[in-house]
């Protein structure tokens, strides 16, 4: 690791910490960052301070879990995006390519439609998780044709095809749901990606799988590097390509499913963050994967904060990431074409 890489990492960690502290401090009923830090410290050591009780409630039960969910989801999506790009040797791949996002959307919308609003806090995530994994499994089974061998192009095409079929089904279920205002509203909100009212329950739902999966994927960095030089080359260098690819598909699917299940569809994080960091750090996945996690977490925490500061309830983080990420990506694309 060169000095420049070390500085990049220190910068990324510092950015994430600052973003999380500021994001926790911002909101309706301003609490200064210093006050926020003191409240957290007091909560940790179990002391009481001379500040109104609502401030602690807002921070510890309202904003903190929301910020943590945003960080986990952003980190998970960016890291799985980086893994997908390495696996498909294509900088345009993202966590959704295996139909995972489409499957999650279908699962969530269907669960809400069938189950109603009573248990929506758990039904949505459960449906999304099952839908995402089901879709990934279907795509993998179709592409491998039961032979256990998968060509990446077949995998990509099967992902696109299954994704569009499932999206059509989602629209159909959504149209049915709109007959009931509340179910329709919740379904739409999920489709746009939402952090509103995310609590410690959501942190608990997303945390274990996301973290275990991310650590596991980070440890495969060197194998991913070798895979980037081509499949035949990786095989010749001693990588069991079929086994590696199966592992990667399983774990990226689990992480993506765990993250989209709690917040819904968030676009562009998995595409833009790894792409940007690859420009800074180069393609070495041993550095890129941890950096992508940190960068993705910061990006989504910031996007969520922007929504709250703008205090427009109509502005969703999923919309912000696409609005910021899309043009930025085009800018990079034009730049690389000139170069």
């Amino acid at each position, binding site marked *: 690791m060169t000095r420049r890489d070390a500085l990049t990492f220190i910068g990324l960690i510092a950015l994430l910490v600052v973003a999380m502290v500021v994001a926790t401090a911002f909101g309706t009923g301003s609490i200064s960052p210093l006050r926020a830090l003191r409240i957290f410290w007091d909560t940790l050591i179990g002391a009481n301070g001379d500040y109104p009780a609502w401030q602690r409630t807002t921070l510890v039960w309202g904003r903190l879990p929301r910020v943590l969910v945003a960080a986990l989801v952003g980190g998970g999506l960016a890291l799985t995006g980086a893994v997908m790009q390495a696996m498909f040797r294509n900088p345009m791949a993202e966590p959704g390519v295996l139909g995972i996002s489409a499957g999650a959307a279908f699962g969530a919308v269907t669960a809400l439609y069938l189950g109603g609003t009573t248990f929506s806090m758990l039904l949505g995530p459960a449906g999304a998780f099952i839908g995402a994994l089901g879709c990934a499994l279907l795509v993998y089974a179709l592409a491998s044709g039961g032979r256990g061998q998968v060509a990446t192009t077949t995998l990509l095409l099967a992902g696109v095809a299954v994704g569009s079929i499932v999206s059509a089904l989602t629209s159909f279920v959504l149209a049915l749901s709109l007959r009931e205002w509340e179910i329709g509203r919740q379904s739409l909100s999920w489709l746009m990606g939402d952090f509103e009212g995310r609590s410690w329950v959501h942190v608990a739902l997303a945390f274990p799988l996301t973290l275990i999966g991310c650590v596991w994927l980070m440890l495969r960095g*060197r194998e991913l590097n*070798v895979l*980037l*030089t*081509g499949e*035949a*080359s990786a095989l*010749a*260098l*001693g990588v069991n390509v079929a086994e590696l690819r199966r592992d990667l598909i399983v774990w990226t699917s689990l992480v993506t499913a765990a993250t989209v299940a709690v917040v819904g569809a968030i676009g562009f994080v998995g595409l833009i963050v790894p792409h940007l960091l690859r420009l800074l750090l180069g393609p070495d996945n041993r550095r890129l994967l941890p950096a992508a996690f940190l960068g993705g977490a910061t990006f989504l925490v910031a996007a969520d904060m922007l929504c709250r500061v703008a205090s427009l309830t109509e502005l969703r983080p999923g919309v912000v990431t696409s609005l910021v990420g899309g043009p930025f990506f085009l800018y990079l694309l034009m730049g690389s074409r000139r170069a």
Partner: protein
Amino acid sequence: MRMALLELDKAWLEIGGKAIARDVSLSPAPGRFLALVGPNGSGKTTVLRLLAGLLAPTRGAARLEGRDLRRWSRREVARRVAVVPQDTHLDFAFTVREIVAMGRHAHLGRFQPEGAHDRAVIEQAMARADVFHLQRRLVTELSGGERQRVLIARSLATEALAIVLDEPTASLDVAHALEAYELCRALANEGKTIVMALHDLNAAARYADQVAVMQSGQCVAQGSPSEALSERLLGDVFGVEAEAFRSRAGWMAFVFHRSGSRAARCQG
């Protein structure tokens, strides 16, 4: 005769009902440089891939150290047989050193970082393939010839006993091609098993101990360069008229004529 490290024993490979290797038997031995020649599409690359265990024969056997290749793990094979591919295209901007270091992959545990020995091997490999001065450059910015040498360095970094090369000199200029042949000759003299597919019959005659001539998936001749590379056989296999002679330095060399055009000569 020394025991073969790699061995194809009456190997066939059929893909989609079409035989692309038919009844090929080869046994490159340690300390020997085996050249694989033949027209385009004659099965040279297929034979190399069978030898390296990247493809499994549909009939017959491919063996490493006398044991069927299917019974070895990928890592075990990679530590013994290195491959220098024909296609050197790389999309991702790794540095030369990072690419060469990938040759150590099969020696390192999943979570094990490079040690002092690995670093020494990597540097030595870069020096021998003449890419040491390029080590911080990005492979995406190199010329085809430089990339080819980087992949030769990567094969050296594996410390494999056998190196299988697929037309490694296709994009090299004369001087670098000669360096590559001489490097392979030296490696063979040090006891490695070298198998190289190539089009340059003059180089095959000069540097190889053994030549195998491929035609339509079959190995039609095998032996020392002077045995295998007869004018008649080359004429049959390549569809040209071959004229063999001795160079002033005493090496066997060839010139080729399109069939029937041998007499026609530009008058200077």
